[in-house]
């Protein structure tokens, strides 16, 4: 115990900042290659969004990071401790909220949370205090003596949350924390995650982009078991901003307009979106300036196509995700 504490102090004194380090994880379930060479790093105090469609390998990665299952190759380190080599040291610093909440329906909320605290080696003199604090923090004080099996989904999710944070772990791994919650509860969970940032390093998985966009500093996108993109939210959105697209609606002669657009410099892949309503779409290359838009508008009006609408397409992470995974 003392040794563990001393070590921990050393790490932080030396500015040890890499809280989660995953390198070269591969995992195969029979014929299915679930993960292929997954690597990423999370600095201390950051919130990282782990984004992927269903079945992309999010839960498998999280299970490996938390030591529930083993990887075929590669390693995962929590606060410098390898989860396979020094599981006890690593797990002491870890809180995990799995996709299926690990709740015992026949237990009372406070009993369950204090069970989790004891399992995570919270000193017995402090268990009561920490359980009360955690329950207050998650506004579970009112239901502390209710049976978990009788609680609604939102409450259960919060109890599962309490289980993950009751021992004040340095690293929090949250697998789809807002799954199945109503919009109010989702907001509440997001606020909670935000409030935990700074003191905890958090990995949070989701297939909902807006959620990740709102809460995370960094994003790792995983698809078919491979990391396809990683970077900050701004970086990823910026990558797409580089290619601007516009949507144009005219009155007639779409095909002819497409032809003349193709001959213009810096206009990328003009195409008809809907020939009935005469809508078309085109992109600008990085070098193009806004002046080009004036030229196109002028061409439409002078050419007698009849301008009905011209709008910039807003691109969000949604597009990055779609772009990358398709």
């Amino acid at each position, binding site marked *: 115990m003392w040794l563990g504490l001393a070590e921990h102090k050393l790490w932080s004194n030396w500015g040890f900042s890499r809280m989660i380090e995953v390198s070269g994880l591969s995992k195969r379930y029979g014929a299915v290659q679930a993960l292929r060479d997954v690597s990423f790093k999370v600095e201390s105090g950051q919130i990282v969004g782990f984004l992927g469609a269903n079945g992309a390998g999010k839960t498998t990665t999280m299970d490996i990071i938390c030591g*529930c299952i*083993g990887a075929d190759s590669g390693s995962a380190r929590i606060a410098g401790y390898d989860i396979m080599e020094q599981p006890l040291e690593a797990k002491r610093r870890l809180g995990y909220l799995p996709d299926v909440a690990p709740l015992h329906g026949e237990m009372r909320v406070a009993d369950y949370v204090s069970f*989790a605290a004891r399992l995570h080696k919270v000193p017995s003199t402090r268990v009561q205090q920490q359980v009360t604090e955690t329950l207050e923090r998650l506004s579970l004080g009112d239901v502390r003596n209710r049976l978990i099996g009788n609680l609604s989904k939102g409450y259960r999710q919060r109890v599962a949350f309490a289980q993950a944070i009751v021992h004040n772990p340095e690293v929090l791994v949250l697998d789809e924390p807002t799954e199945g919650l109503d919009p109010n509860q989702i907001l509440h969970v997001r606020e909670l995650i935000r409030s935990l940032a700074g003191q905890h390093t958090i990995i949070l998985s989701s297939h909902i982009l807006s959620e990740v966009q709102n809460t995370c500093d960094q994003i790792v996108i995983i698809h078919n078991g491979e990391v396809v993109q990683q970077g900050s939210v701004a970086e990823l959105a910026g990558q797409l901003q580089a290619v601007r697209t516009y949507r144009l609606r005219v009155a007639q002669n779409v095909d002819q307009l497409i032809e003349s657009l193709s001959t213009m410099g810096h206009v990328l892949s003009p195409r008809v979106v809907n020939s009935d309503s005469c809508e078309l779409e085109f992109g600008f290359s990085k070098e193009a300036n806004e002046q080009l838009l004036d030229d196109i508008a002028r061409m439409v009006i002078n050419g007698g196509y009849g301008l009905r609408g011209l709008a910039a397409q807003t691109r969000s992470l949604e597009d990055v995700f779609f772009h990358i995974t398709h």
Partner: protein
Amino acid sequence: MNAVFTIAWRDIRATFASPKGCAIFFFFLGFMGVFFYNFLHTFVELTQRAPMFGGEAPTLEQLLRALFYNLHFILILVIPAVTMSSFSEERRNQTIRLLQTSPITATQIVLGKFLASAAVLALALACSAVYPLFIKVFGNPDGSLILTSYLGIFLLMCAQLAFGLWVSSMTTNQFMAFLFTMFGLFLLLILNWLAPSVNSGGLMETVLKYVASTDHLDMFFKGMLTVSDVTYFVCFAALFLFFTNVVLDSQRWR
């Protein structure tokens, strides 16, 4: 060690929080009562008839022995009911993740589960002592025989629990765990009847008879404690607890 007690205490409370715990006590003590009544009735009848026919009256020790042999039979049904949920239910509900991500070893989990089921059944055994004690109060049987018999039954129970835990750790289906544990224990029970037909008089028969659980109880039921029988049960339990540990640990690298 703290983690072991934490896990055990939660499991014990869970057993009694559900109807399962009560059902186990109900059936265990109920059947014991039926057997006790039945045997006592026969005992009294035989005792009354003995002078008439000039035969020897049965002894209280014989009555006790019959009772304990039947206890052994009931355990075959009760043990799987206790152990079936210990791992398979946790795996099915995914609650095992809480244990897997806690800073505890697989050994601590196994020992915690074992301690919990042993405590529940030890309590049931303690309650069943009311029948032998009844005989002790109203008759004068050999008191040490009751004690050694209970020790034997307790050791047997620990060994069977370890086997049940091992089966439970390998499946996510409680019913399968129940079935396999029950048939496994039954096989163990009938091994010494099967043994002669396997290879009469050979080494195989000796080995099979040694593995069978029933023979090792005889000495306990006669009021004798032998090192070899105690060793048998302790080794049996340790072996299957070790197997359970391996199964649990292997989930980390499978």
